[in-house]
C-alpha cells in the first residue's frame, strides 16, 4: 500500500492511471445508463430536472477529464519510456505528483454530490453566466472548478515530463525518426496540452474569482462579457478534443501495424499529419461559437475544413498499412477496425457542422451529441479497449481471454451504433441536447427507445469486459514476453518489465527493432 502510494516508477504510475481512469469510467458509465433510463420514454419522471442536470454534467465531465484524456496520458506514462528505451521518465517525482493531483481532483469533482444543492449542474462547459447563479450557486460547482483545476495542473506537469523524456532520454540509436507512432502522437498531444490547458485554468480561476471575490469578468451588467468565457473555454476545448483523440490514433496505428504484419505505411506522413492536426486545432475554437454571432464564421469554418485533410491522410495510411498485409483478426485488431468505422462517421459529421448554415440548424441539438460520441466513444473508447487487450499482457503478464473479448467487441459495437445512430435523427427532428424529457411527437419516442436499448447492450459489453479481466487473472495462463509479434521496443523486454525496464538494451538500427532481432530477419 505505502509502496504504491509513494512509488515513482513510471510503470506503477501508469498502471494506477489505468486503474483510476477505469474506475471513473464505471461511475460515468452508470451515469450514462441513468440518462438513457430517464430518456427511454417521453415524459418520464425517474429523474427531476435538477438531478438530470447533475447527472449529465458529471457524466460528460468525467468521461472527458477523468477517463479518455488521462487514460491516454497514463498509457503514455507506461509505454513511452519502454518504447524509446529509457529507464524511467525524466522527472519521476513530478510524475507521481501529477498522478495524485489527478486522482484527488477527480474525487473532488464527484464530492460535489455530497454537498447541499448537489454536484455541478452546468454541463462540462460550465458557461458563464450559468456558472454564477441558479444551478451553479452550490458548493458543488466550486468543487467542480477546484477539481478540474487540479487535473489541469496535473496534465500540464505530466506533458512537460513526457516531452523532456522523449527529447532527452532516447536510447542510443533511437533517433526521433525511429520512435513509434504512439510516442509521436504523445509528443503532439503534450505540445497541445501545454498550449491549451492554461487557457482553461484561467477561465476556471476567473469564474472562481467571480463567485467568491466579486470579480465581473463575464458579467455584462458590470461591463464584463460572457463571450470571453466561451473564448477562453473553447481555446482550450477544441484542442482538448484532439487531446482526446491523438493518443488513440497512436494506439490504433500500433495495433494495425502489428496485426497486419507490416511496417506503418507512410510513417513520415503520419507524423506530419499529427502535427498538422495539432496545429490547426489551435485555430478552430470558435466553430463552437458560430451561433453567438460574435465571431468570424468564415475564418473558423475554413480552418475547420482544413483539419479534415490531415485526418484523411491518417485514414489513407491506416488502410495502406492493412493493404495486402496478412491480417490477424484478434481482439485488439477488431477494436481498431471498429475505431476506423465509427470514427469515420464522427469525422464526417464534424465536417458537416463545420459549415455555419448547417451548424445553425444542428447546434445544441442531439445531432451534436451524435457527432461527438462517434469521435470520443466510437473512436477513442474503442481504441481504449483495443489498448487494454493489446498491452494487458505486457503490464500484468496475463493475456485476456480472446473468446470473451470477441463478445465484448460485438456487444460494444452493436450497442454503440444502436445508441448513437438514432441521435442524429433526433437532432434533425429538433430534439435539443441537455433536456431532461421530451414530448411524444414524431419519431422521438421510437428513436429514444432504440437508443436506450442500445445503451443496455453496451452496458452488458462493459460488464463482460470486467468479467474477462477477472477470469483471465484467475486462470493465469502462461504468456510469452511478446504474445503478438510486436515490432517496437516494449516487446523486447520481459512481461511485465523489470525495474528500470531493460536488463540489456538492444541495438536499435531501424524503426522496428523487435523485428530486426528476430531470427530469420536481416
Amino acid at each position, binding site marked *: 500500500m505505502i*509502496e504504491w*502510494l*509513494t*512509488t*515513482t*516508477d513510471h510503470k506503477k504510475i501508469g498502471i494506477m492511471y489505468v486503474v483510476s481512469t477505469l474506475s471513473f469510467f464505471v461511475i460515468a458509465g452508470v451515469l450514462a445508463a441513468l440518462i438513457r433510463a430517464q430518456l427511454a420514454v417521453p415524459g418520464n419522471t425517474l429523474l427531476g430536472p435538477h438531478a438530470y442536470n447533475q447527472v449529465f454534467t458529471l457524466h460528460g465531465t468525467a468521461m472527458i477529464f477523468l477517463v479518455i484524456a488521462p487514460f491516454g496520458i497514463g498509457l503514455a506514462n507506461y509505454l513511452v519510456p519502454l518504447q524509446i528505451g529509457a*529507464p*524511467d521518465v525524466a522527472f*519521476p*517525482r*513530478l*510524475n*507521481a*505528483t501529477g*498522478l*495524485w*493531483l489527478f486522482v*484527488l*481532483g477527480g474525487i*473532488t469533482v464527484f464530492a460535489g454530490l455530497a454537498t447541499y444543492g448537489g454536484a455541478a449542474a452546468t454541463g462540462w462547459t460550465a458557461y458563464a453566466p450559468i456558472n454564477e447563479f441558479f444551478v451553479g450557486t452550490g*458548493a458543488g460547482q*466550486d*468543487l467542480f472548478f*477546484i477539481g478540474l483545476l*487540479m487535473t489541469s*495542473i496535473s496534465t500540464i506537469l505530466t506533458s512537460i515530463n513526457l516531452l523532456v523524456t522523449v*527529447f*532527452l*532520454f*532516447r*536510447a*542510443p*540509436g*533511437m*533517433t*526521433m525518426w525511429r520512435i513509434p507512432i504512439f510516442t509521436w502522437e504523445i*509528443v503532439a498531444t503534450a505540445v497541445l496540452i501545454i*498550449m491549451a490547458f492554461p*487557457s482553461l485554468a484561467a477561465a476556471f480561476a476567473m469564474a*472562481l474569482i467571480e463567485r*467568491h471575490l466579486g470579480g465581473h469578468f463575464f458579467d455584462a451588467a458590470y461591463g464584463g462579457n460572457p*463571450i*470571453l468565457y466561451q*473564448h*477562453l473555454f473553447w*481555446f482550450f476545448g477544441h484542442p482538448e478534443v484532439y487531446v482526446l483523440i491523438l493518443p488513440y490514433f497512436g494506439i490504433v496505428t500500433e495495433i494495425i501495424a502489428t496485426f497486419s504484419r507490416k511496417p506503418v505505411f507512410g510513417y513520415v506522413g503520419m507524423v506530419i499529419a499529427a*502535427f498538422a492536426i495539432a*496545429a490547426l486545432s*489551435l*485555430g478552430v475554437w*470558435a466553430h463552437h461559437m458560430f451561433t453567438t454571432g*460574435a*465571431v*468570424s464564421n*468564415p*475564418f473558423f469554418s475554413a480552418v475547420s475544413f482544413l483539419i479534415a485533410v490531415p485526418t484523411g491522410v491518417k485514414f489513407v495510411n491506416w488502410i495502406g498499412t492493412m493493404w495486402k498485409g496478412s491480417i490477424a483478426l484478434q481482439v485488439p485488431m477488431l477494436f481498431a477496425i471498429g475505431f476506423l468505422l465509427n470514427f469515420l462517421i464522427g469525422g464526417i459529421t464534424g465536417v458537416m457542422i463545420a459549415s455555419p448554415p448547417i451548424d445553425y440548424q444542428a447546434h445544441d441539438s442531439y445531432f451534436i451529441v451524435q457527432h461527438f460520441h462517434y469521435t470520443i466513444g466510437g473512436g477513442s473508447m474503442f481504441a481504449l479497449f483495443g489498448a487494454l487487450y493489446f498491452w494487458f499482457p505486457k503490464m500484468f503478464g496475463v493475456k485476456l481471454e480472446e473468446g470473451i473479448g470477441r463478445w465484448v467487441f460485438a456487444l460494444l459495437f452493436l450497442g454503440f451504433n444502436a445508441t448513437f445512430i438514432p441521435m442524429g435523427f433526433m437532432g434533425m427532428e429538433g430534439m435539443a441536447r441537455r433536456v431532461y424529457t421530451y414530448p411524444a411527437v414524431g419519431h422521438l419516442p421510437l428513436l429514444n427507445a432504440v437508443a436506450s436499448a442500445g445503451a443496455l447492450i453496451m452496458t452488458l459489453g462493459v460488464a463482460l469486459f470486467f468479467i474477462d479481466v477477472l477470469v483471465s487473472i484467475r486462470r493465469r495462463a502462461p504468456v510469452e514476453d511478446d504474445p503478438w509479434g510486436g515490432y517496437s521496443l516494449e516487446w523486447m523486454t520481459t512481461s511485465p518489465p523489470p*525495474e*528500470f525496464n531493460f536488463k540489456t538494451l*538492444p*541495438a536499435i538500427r531501424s524503426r522496428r527493432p523487435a523485428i530486426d532481432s528476430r531470427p530469420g530477419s536481416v
Partner: protein
Amino acid sequence: MRSFVGLFAFAAAFGAVIAVVYWFVAHEEAAGTALLAVMATGLAFAAAYAVVAERDARLEGDDPNETPQMAAGDDLGVFTTNSPWPVLIALCTLALFTGLLWSPLLGIAGLVGMILCFWRLGAESART
C-alpha cells in the same frame, strides 16, 4: 535537441501566422488574437531558450549509428523508486484550494504543508 528546437520553432511560426490572419479577419474581437499571440510568443521562447541553454548538448539518441556499447558508462543521473512527497504535495494542493474558498485556516495549513514538502523534496533530490 535539433528536433526539439525545430518542433517548437515551427509551432511558433504557425501560431504567429494564424494570429496575423486572425487579426485581419476578426479584428473587432481581441481575445482570439491575444490568445494566439501569447501562444506564439511562448513557443518561440521555448525554442530560443533551448538554443541558448543547450548549445553543446550531444544526445546518444540523436545518432543513428550509436550502439549501447558505445554509450555504456554515460551518466543518466539517478532515478528514484519511491518518494513520499508527491502524494503529500497533492493533498496540500487540495487543502490549499478548498481552504481558499471556505476556511482560511485550512488554506494556510495547505500552503505551509506544501512549502514543507517542496523543501524536503528538494533535500531528497539533492541527496540522490
